[in-house]
């Protein structure tokens, strides 16, 4: 099990489009991937889960993974978030 913390860097936070980007990155891996906010922990491959997390800009979230390629999986998802989804940063 690998985990890494990151602050949501964009102004609007994880709304529909960013959520879709996260899910699309996560489904590339066979291992289980999660995203966790102070409020909830959800399956990173579930668009509904990631959206209901409703993490706003500035929230500290944890990305974790377990199974094959867990390290790369966490790195990839964290990188997607760090990029700010190509949106305006805080």
């Amino acid at each position, binding site marked *: 099990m690998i985990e890494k913390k990151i602050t949501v860097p964009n102004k609007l936070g994880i*709304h*529909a489009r960013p959520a879709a980007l996260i899910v*699309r990155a996560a489904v590339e891996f066979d291992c289980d991937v999660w995203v966790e906010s102070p409020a909830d922990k*959800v399956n990173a491959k*579930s*668009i*509904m*889960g990631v959206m209901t997390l409703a993490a706003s800009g500035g929230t500290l979230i944890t990305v974790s993974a377990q199974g094959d390629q867990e390290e790369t999986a966490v790195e990839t998802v964290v990188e997607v978030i760090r990029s700010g989804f190509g949106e305006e940063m805080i």
Partner: protein
Amino acid sequence: MLFKGIAASHGIAIGPAFLLKVEELRHARRTLIDSSESEEEILRFRDAIISVKHDLENIADSMGDVVEGRQILEFLLLLLQDPTIKKEVENKIRCDKVNAEYAVSSTLLDVMDKFNIMKDPYIRERVADVKDVGRRIIEKLTGTEKDALNNLKQPVVLVARDLDPSETAGLKPGQVLAFVTDMGGKTSHTTILARALGIPAVVGLQKITVEIHPQDLIIVDGIHGCVIVNPTEKELSYYAEIREQFQEAESLLQQANPGPALTEDGVRYELAANIELPHEVEMVKSLAADGIGLFRTEFLRLIQEKGENEEDHFDIYNKMALDMLPKPVIIRTYDMGGDKFRTGLNSAREANPFLGYRAVRIGLDRPEEFSIQLRAILRASIHGNIKLMFPMVTHVEQLRSLLDLIKLVKNDLRVKAIPFDENMQVGIMVETPATVIALDLMLPYVDFVSIGTNDLTQYTLAVDRGNPKVAYLYDSFHPAVLRQIDTVVRLCHAQQKWVGVCGSMAANPLAVPLLIGFGVDELSVAPSLIPDVKKMIAVVTTHAAREMAEKSLSIETGLRVRALVHSYVIGKYPEILLDENDWKTGG
């Protein structure tokens, strides 16, 4: 449990319920029998997902470079394949033992609730997407249900919110014992179809689809407008007996008079049949009707899967003309729109479909497609017994354009040396007050008219006959309707044109004496009603009919007109199956 609705088509049926598609995201719950059925439902659900995925990918491909469109579709695809949702649905099917449709709709309704309470407006907006995905999955699931309807092992009572022609076009007589619907009134599509098939129907039951479960035993009493769900032994034996009596009476009626329709004083009266499906011609012939007064061609559109095909039209018209020879066949061109069809032709939802893009308005807007039907009709006219009728003509300009279109088709046929009947009669339906008031201006262009009393009543009284809240105002005996019928007959006869009635008034025992009295030349009714109407005509003398008709024109209310005719009819024909609603209330 007993439910009361509107008696739409006479008869009694007893059989198992078959629920046909229940509105998008509120699907009826059905409890599964065992775990093997659960596994079947799960497979059905997974197949539906694959099939929707395929559809969405196709749409995405067709979008090309439209970035926003692609993004939306990619989002829909992610939702569709969401592992959490999938697991939840399959859990429901497995643990709660419910059908796939119910599991999908209840899961997605929960998701929508969750999205709805989110603070982020960007997320709330996505509720529509969840709904879209849900609707697509359920459409696939119920699609297989429709297939099941075509592969029934035993006849069923069809239960639905409302019946769409696209769902009922493939029905074979004998497959369905009766119709039971939430929506509809005495003249809705379901009713017309039930009468055409000669099966009982109770409509306007409001929420019956929620009360009935698949395979429930149902008694449909189309005489009194009752539906009994899971009847007691006592009710069952009572109705089994009534059903037998009714069938006996029906067959007696059918045997009773194989000859032409005659009034009591021996005047020969023209009585034709309205048909929807080509195979009904057999019944029309065995009942010795005076031809086909109305062939509704809308079903052809549904039989044709790959767009309009002239040969398909021609084959059916040609066979019908030959089968009926020498009796006339009146072919009405497409009457799509209104309540009858929601086809690809008018993809935009209309605020007022009855006032919108329908019938010849579509035909004139798409003359090339429309000409395919006209050509086929003209080619079949070679046998000499075909007449063509246009629905919903409200403007003289339309009528002129339609006749120009016929002229063009005729010229083309002449050039190609394809034979047709040069003197084929052309007529119009009279369905709106506009057509009645300006009829003298239209008559010089046509050979005959046929009054569609259902539409004429609805347009005159501004009442949507399918809306249960106002349906009570719908009354074909309203003075405004009766006076218009009288006007139409006078105008037609003044210009030596004949006039028929093909709406449901033509089979109403209280209306038949009035129509005869007004001087209507022909009545056209569903084939299964021909024996009844023959009997209705046989108890009327032309003199009494004329007197009643004249008197009716100065009576204030429809109710009183019905009472007037009722007292005459009941005295001469007491055993007639009079629907009490016909004369007690405005129904």
